[in-house]
């Protein structure tokens, strides 16, 4: 916690950088100006990169997924199976991922110390805790900012979250509405994305042209970043509306739809792939109901095979399309589940030793990082928290985790000062 604030100040020595930041926003060419600050090769590395986050809301059990402990008192009824990497075993509920483990790195050593759904979700979406007076942007907003283009004709942060459990913790924080998520909470089709029936295509186009004329007149002799963002927003309308076809899963060949399967989660992940393919830098697909305080094993017996199938299908599909080297697939929850099995045969919240996985872009596939003890009570090797996980994700995408944003004159790095990515996880 204390680390977050190391760089705080209101000193005038940051004014130059701040103006560079504002200036770039004002010109509506944020990308170009920031490019000058970073090396060209670093910038090129980021091009065309996307992240698909499979968010297992409620907290998936590491024992029934990536860190099985068969035979231990905490292990539960399921066995482990051999993956395509010799010596690495995962839960028998994940045979398909076991078979195509080559692109995936499992991290078994998360200790995030927060077992409360609300604040842990925020922590795992932002990589740190908000301050009293500073709301941090989440991973999606940061990646929208880093990987998206200002003039992009597709959304740059899409979040599917149709279930009711564990919503409302994402957000763009101090980055503001420009980088906020397009939230799909009622249907898989975004709100206000379709042209209403009461206006024809031609009229829609004509009235926009009229608006743009007023805008051009007004901009004479006036410079402001907010003004530029307003114009930018309207210039993106047609492209975003056009991207509605990306959200229409029926546009996908039946063969591919069959591969993913008929479930809601599978369809959303397929849509996520369509979005990533068209240049959307960040898509989150929320899959709820992992919070198995009772009947943990039945719950996981139902949910894990679906996850296994969809995740393996997604990775194969991305690979077939040549997208996997540029697409990072993250499976993450707000926390894991207790080693102890309670009297309702459930597992409760547990944040001291749990797992997540990273696959594809920039990741050392077929590997495992970190280790828990025999019963899964604690991390014995490679312990990391949310900050290092985020630094690793950013680094895998070619983004410097210590790059600064400016809030007022205060520099705020993407991850807490001094946070190192986990190099063993990176390709």
């Amino acid at each position, binding site marked *: *916690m*204390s680390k*977050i*604030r*190391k760089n*705080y*100040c*209101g*000193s005038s*020595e940051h004014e130059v950088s701040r103006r560079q930041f*504002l200036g770039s*926003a004002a010109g509506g060419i944020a990308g170009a100006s920031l490019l000058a600050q970073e090396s060209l090769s670093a910038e090129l590395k980021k091009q065309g990169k996307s992240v698909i986050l499979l968010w297992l809301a409620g907290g998936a059990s590491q024992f029934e997924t990536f860190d099985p402990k068969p035979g231990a008192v905490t292990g539960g009824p399921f066995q482990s199976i051999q993956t395509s990497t010799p010596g690495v075993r995962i839960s028998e509920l994940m045979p398909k991922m076991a078979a195509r483990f080559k692109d995936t790195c499992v991290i078994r050593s998360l200790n995030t110390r927060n077992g409360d759904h609300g604040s842990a979700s925020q922590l795992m979406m932002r990589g740190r805790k908000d*301050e*009293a*007076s500073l*709301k941090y942007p989440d991973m999606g907003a940061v990646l929208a900012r880093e990987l998206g283009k200002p003039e992009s004709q597709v959304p740059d942060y899409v979040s599917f979250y149709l279930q009711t459990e564990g919503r409302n913790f994402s957000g763009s924080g*101090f*980055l*503001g*509405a*420009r*980088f*906020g998520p397009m939230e799909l909470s009622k249907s898989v089709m*975004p709100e*206000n*994305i379709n*042209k*209403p029936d*009461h*206006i024809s295509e031609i*009229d*829609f186009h*004509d*009235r*926009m042209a*009229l*608006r743009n004329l*007023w*805008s051009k007149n*007004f*901009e004479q*002799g*006036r*410079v*402001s*970043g*907010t*003004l530029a*963002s*307003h*114009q*930018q*927003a*309207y210039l*993106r*309308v047609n492209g*975003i*509306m056009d991207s509605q076809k990306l959200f229409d899963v029926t546009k996908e060949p039946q063969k591919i739809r069959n591969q993913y399967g008929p479930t809601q989660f599978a369809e959303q992940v397929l849509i996520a792939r369509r979005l990533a393919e068209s240049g959307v830098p960040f898509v989150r697909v929320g899959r709820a109901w992992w919070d198995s305080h009772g009947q943990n094993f039945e719950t996981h017996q139902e949910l894990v095979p679906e996850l296994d199938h969809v995740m393996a299908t997604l990775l194969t599909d991305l690979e077939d399309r040549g997208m996997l080297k540029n697409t990072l697939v993250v499976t993450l929850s707000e926390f894991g589940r207790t080693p102890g099995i309670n009297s309702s045969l459930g597992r409760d919240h547990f944040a001291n030793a749990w797992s997540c996985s990273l696959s594809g872009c920039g990741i050392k596939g077929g590997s495992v990082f970190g280790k828990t003890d025999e019963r899964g009570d604690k991390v014995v090797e490679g312990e990391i928290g949310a900050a290092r996980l985020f630094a690793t994700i950013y680094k895998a995408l070619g983004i410097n985790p210590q790059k600064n944003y400016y809030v*007022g*004159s205060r520099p705020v790095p993407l991850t807490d000062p001094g946070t190192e990515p986990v190099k063993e996880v990176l390709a």
Partner: protein
Amino acid sequence: MLPPSTSIEKAIDYYIEASWKEKKIKPAVAADDNAWLRRVTLDLVGRIPTSSEAKSFLEDKDPAKKQKSIEKLIASPLHLRHQAQEIETFLMNGTKGGMSEYLTKAIAENRSWDRIFKEIILADESDASNKGSSDFLKSRVKDLDRLTNDVSVAFFGVNVSCAQCHDHPLVHDWKQDHFYGMKSFFSRTYEVGNFLAEKEYGVVKFLPNKGKEKQADFMFLTGKTVKPAGMTEPTKEELKKEKEMVEEWKKNKTQPPKPKTSTRAMLLELALAKEDRDFFAKAFVNQTWNRFYGFGLVMPLDQMHSENPPSHPELMNWLARDFADNGFNIPRLVKGMVSSKVYGLSSRYEGESTPLAKDFAMARLKPLTPMQMGVSLRLAGQFLTGNDQDKKIDEISKGSKGLADQFAQPTEDFQIGVTEALFFSNSNRFQTECLGEGKDKLVTAMTSLATPEEQADLAVWSVLSRAATSDEKSVIAGYLKKHGANPQDASKQVLWSLMASPEFRFNH
């Protein structure tokens, strides 16, 4: 420094003009009458002027018409509501709570800023006229760190959160002692059911980044300290008794009694002492200046400290002294701020090198707040006639919250997202609330006019509060003719284009 007898607007113009001279800056020209009226109406009553208000102001030949408009706007009930909303936003933004009940009353009764500050910090609702005043503390009391910082930011323009974990690396003013010193004043406050209570004892201990754990002094930002009673831990016996009392209060749902010494009251004494009330006065002056001029004399607003001086130190000192000496009178300050020539400059700069925001040599574009957007959009879609316009405007204003909620609260370096443009373009809500047809509706009034030129004129007057230029008139008339097959739809499209324009989106 200019003498205290100088008027606020004269002092503003004097200091700002002096800085232009020194930096050889050529300011923008004065805004035209319509731009000025739109600006001041949005700033004081939170809505655009109606077409009839805009027209009659333009025609008014009285040389004192601006001053008269300001007086009239400030005296209107809408001003009180808007003023209360603005203060509520900066006090409560980011919390789930509101405090409109208390603020509406306090502003309506013209309570001074120091009185409002006292009532919020004392949070004593036993006096019915202070009902709702405890909402500021209540919405934060579960998180004392946040409460400490929010009080410092809202009332003193100082963000001390950095000093929670370490002495400020670059700002020598702020040490951990200051953060925990400020926190001490609130550390005895806690919630009992729906009420706030304050203990008779309690201190804050913290672990400095160097050395052993230490006990914080009750220290104000100036470094001054006080020593209240109750600096020792209570005995087990006392704690047991207290626990029983709390249970009793909870059960009976009663307001716990006031403590003999309130440390929050002690903070008030320190903060408002004549020699140290500068923090308090300057923070509000800066906040208010930022609201009307779109950029604080000190930026960021929560970084008022010695390493980050105001752009115009003498003006800041003069305004703070004036505000304090005149009893922290809010309307007086507001009126002075919007009466200056600097306030009335054009937002367009014709010269070569555009001046910086901190030069105040041109008006800054201010994105409309959610409420300004909601009310103004709904009002723009109306064509009000007859004598009861004020009443109708009041009704429109009261019914605008839902539409307002579609927009984001502007922040520093505010960026407008595509969601807003999609809402304008495709939502039913926008179509229904802003472009409806029928009695008192602009679409209907427009289509009843004989010529496209007259229609264009009415559209621009109603939405942009000014006359259309001849170019605009011919473009709009051309559009209406081209789309003449369905006049209602054509009118709606024209109005849409004006409402979605930046000229509408900003207070300029």
